[in-house]
């Protein structure tokens, strides 16, 4: 009788307890704590590319309901600052880190410590030397370099001398693009690559380098600018030297300055990446990884060749002028 009674009370308590348990289970299932993802970019102020990429990151974070914070040095050249910022990020124990490496080799220890901390890692835009990230989402930079080289080669005379204005030495994007450019131009009959010059990702520096280059090599036929500031700097120098149309310029990325250079005919073509897609896919892949899905180790986003003729098409407008501003 006694045990029977207590049995009854246990059942009476058990029913609400079960309901509560079920409810808690449902809630925890439905609404997990928003996942925290830290995005490490190479620069936050300098280049429009990163602004658009961050826009893509924000769009994805809104869509997938994740908590995203973006960290990065003001300028691409500040690799030490980026390393320091990423070390800080590791301490916050995020659910994933999405990052672009400011340097192909110097970021390796940082990336190692991210993996050692057990944090899933997605690399975007630029990789590091080694196989650390679960996924790399980037423009196929080798292919983009090849596109740029083809664009330039079409406009070059038979025997041509070409210079490459690169940006920060040691980043994977720069290395791959240069390899892409060289793979085409070195195959071309009578074409000589006079050298690769580094602008450190700054327009002014690119301008100075190009001015000097144009003075030293008056026989130069073409320049490939491997990113936006390098291209704009080189374009300014060509314009100021009155060599428009004589020295062909093919560049990378987009900005109002590049648009003007395109209209003026200084810049023949520019290879525009899709930073919005890179940022968006970076977060999307990170979310998949957190949820335990398999992710592809390599995702290439495409790049688009933009020249004076197609720059105002509906699709390209949004790539060239990503922001609606007063």
């Amino acid at each position, binding site marked *: 009788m006694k045990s*029977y009674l207590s049995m009854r009370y246990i059942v009476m308590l058990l029913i*609400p307890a079960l309901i509560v348990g079920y409810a808690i289970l449902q809630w925890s299932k439905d609404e997990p704590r928003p996942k925290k993802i830290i995005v490490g970019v190479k620069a936050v102020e300098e280049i429009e590319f990163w602004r658009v990429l961050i826009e893509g990151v924000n769009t994805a974070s809104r869509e997938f309901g994740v908590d995203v914070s973006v960290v990065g040095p003001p300028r691409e050249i500040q690799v030490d600052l980026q390393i320091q910022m990423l070390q800080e990020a590791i301490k916050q124990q995020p659910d994933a880190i999405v990052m672009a490496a400011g340097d192909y080799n110097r970021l390796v220890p940082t990336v190692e410590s991210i993996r050692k901390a057990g944090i899933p890692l997605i690399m975007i835009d630029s990789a590091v030397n080694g196989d650390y990230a679960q996924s790399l989402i980037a423009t196929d930079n080798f292919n983009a370099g090849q596109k740029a080289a083809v664009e330039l080669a079409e406009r070059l005379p038979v025997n041509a001398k070409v210079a490459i204005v690169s940006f920060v030495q040691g980043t994977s994007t720069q290395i791959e693009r240069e390899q892409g450019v060289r793979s085409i131009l070195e195959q071309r009959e009578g074409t000589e690559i006079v050298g690769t010059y580094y602008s450190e990702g700054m327009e002014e520096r690119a301008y100075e380098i190009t001015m000097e280059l144009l003075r030293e090599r008056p026989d130069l036929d073409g320049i490939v600018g491997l990113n936006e500031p390098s291209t704009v700097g080189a374009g300014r120098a060509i314009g100021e030297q009155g060599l428009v149309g004589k020295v062909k310029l093919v560049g990378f990325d987009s900005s109002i300055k590049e648009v003007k250079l395109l209209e003026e005919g200084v810049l023949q073509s520019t290879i525009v990446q899709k930073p*919005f897609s890179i940022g968006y896919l970076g977060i999307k892949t990170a979310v998949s990884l957190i949820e335990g899905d398999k992710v592809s180790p390599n995702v290439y986003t495409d790049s688009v060749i933009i020249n004076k003729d197609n720059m*105002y098409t*509906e*699709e390209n407008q949004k790539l060239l*002028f*990503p922001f*609606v501003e007063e």
Partner: protein
Amino acid sequence: MKSSQRIKSIQSRIASSFVMLVLFTALLLIFISYRLSESAVRETAESYTSELINQVNANIQTYITGMKDISLATMNNPNVREYLASSEELQPAELAQLKAKISEYFHSIRVSRKDIASINIFGEGGTFISDRTNAELNPYIEVSEQPWYRQAQENKGQTVISSSHVQPVIKGEYRWVVSLSRELSGITPTQGLGILLIDLNFKVINDMLSKLDLGNRGYVFVIDSQGRIVYHPQQQLLYSNLKTERLEQVLQDKQGGFVVKEDGASRIYSIKDTDFGWKIVGVFYENELVDNKKQMQLSFAVAGLLCLGLGVLFSVVISRNLTRPIKKLQEKMMEVEKGNFDIRVPVGHSREISGLARSFNVMVSKVKELMRQIMVEQEFKRKSELNALQAQINPHFLYNTLDSIIWMAESKKHDEVILMTSALARLFRASLSKGKELIPIATEMEHITNYLKIQQMRYQDKIRYTLDMDPELYSYLTLKVLLQPLVENAIYHGIKNKEGPGTITITGAHEDHMIVFQVMDDGIGMDEAKVETLLTSSGGNQSRNSVGIANVHQRIQLYFGANYGLSYTSEPGAGTCVKLLIPAIHAEERREKEGDMP
């Protein structure tokens, strides 16, 4: 034994029934009210969303109507008309003055309207009037090849609204705008004189749309009549083919919206048409409609648990309160069971329980009374049996009888000795009757006969007797030794004191399920006072004999009830008659009954 068949306590029954009741009603109520509030919230959200889209529609309409109004005002502006009608005839100075006036006019409009980016006229001859006097045309852009220009030409004076695009015609400016263009005509309507271009700053639309809140994933997009995107927050994803939008379906839709089920979530497309061909589409996710769903669920669950908790608590308290008096009653009953009859249960508040308690109290006191009565009766029974025993072997009678036998033996009256001794022997045998209380009337008759014989021999001719007994009665039962005390009394108090011989008559008859014995004598009789004390006396200073009579009476009443017993009628000098009533119990029937009940 199965647990369901076990005896359950009322408390646990009440409590569990209450809990079940509370549980089910609470769950049902919560479920229903949750559903109701959810649908109410959903409806509110839906109407809010629809209202939102309407608002967007109205705002965009306002902007476009504003541009149209400006275009109309411009066409009717006398300066513009003059300029268009007669630009070739005017002197350059006058023309410049007119241009300045028009530019001034445009400027004043643009300043008053924040949404207007620029107002320009592109004349046929390459002339250009802008709202800003210092504006220059972009030298690298061919104005006449711009889509808005061509479409305005094609539409012959009708307004043309473009999709959103970058306007590169002004040097150094690359603004996102929506363009209204319209061909301006002079006096001859067929001859176009120029194109009016009004650019709406797309930022106003972009800002308005991007700030709309349609849940985390919901958004608004706008397409023009050709299905080109005017605004889409994920435009870049669409162009990169990372996402697709149902533009075709939106274009073809006539219902004002549709629902798309994809990846387990359903999206609701709400479409509003504007009168200039744009479609404004609100996309929201059904599961986000109720944005504080979790909070609502939580508050409902908390309320429900609170209800449940209170319900359980109350059930326990109520059931305990209800059953406490019963438990108390039960405890008291246990004490009664143990034999304590001096218990009073306090009468409670509730009617049922107080009634129960009252009845219990009455019952206990009744039981106590009955117990006392039984004890008295038992005691009396023991005493009467002893008395009966004493009556059987009255020592005086025995002594007198034996004395008579001795005396007769001395007188060598052997026959009398034998007669008397054998009568005495039979008397005792009849009175023993194997220890049974009830004996056949035949045995009783034998007993009384032998007694009378002995007395007759002792008193010689002083006593005469007649026995008038219906032989049918012999097989009925009676209590033993009933008649002897009566006869003894008749002899000692009636006949013995009378002069001359006396007669004792004993009759027996069957009347109405009763057997009636009568013992009559013609002795000295008694007065009424004596008669009355005869049956109630119980010892004391009464004679041993009258104790015997009272004992007979009480034994009959004890055995058969108050309806039976003795009744005396006597008259001094005439004699006494005692009537003895007992129920008619047949020996056979009695045996059968006893056989039935072992």
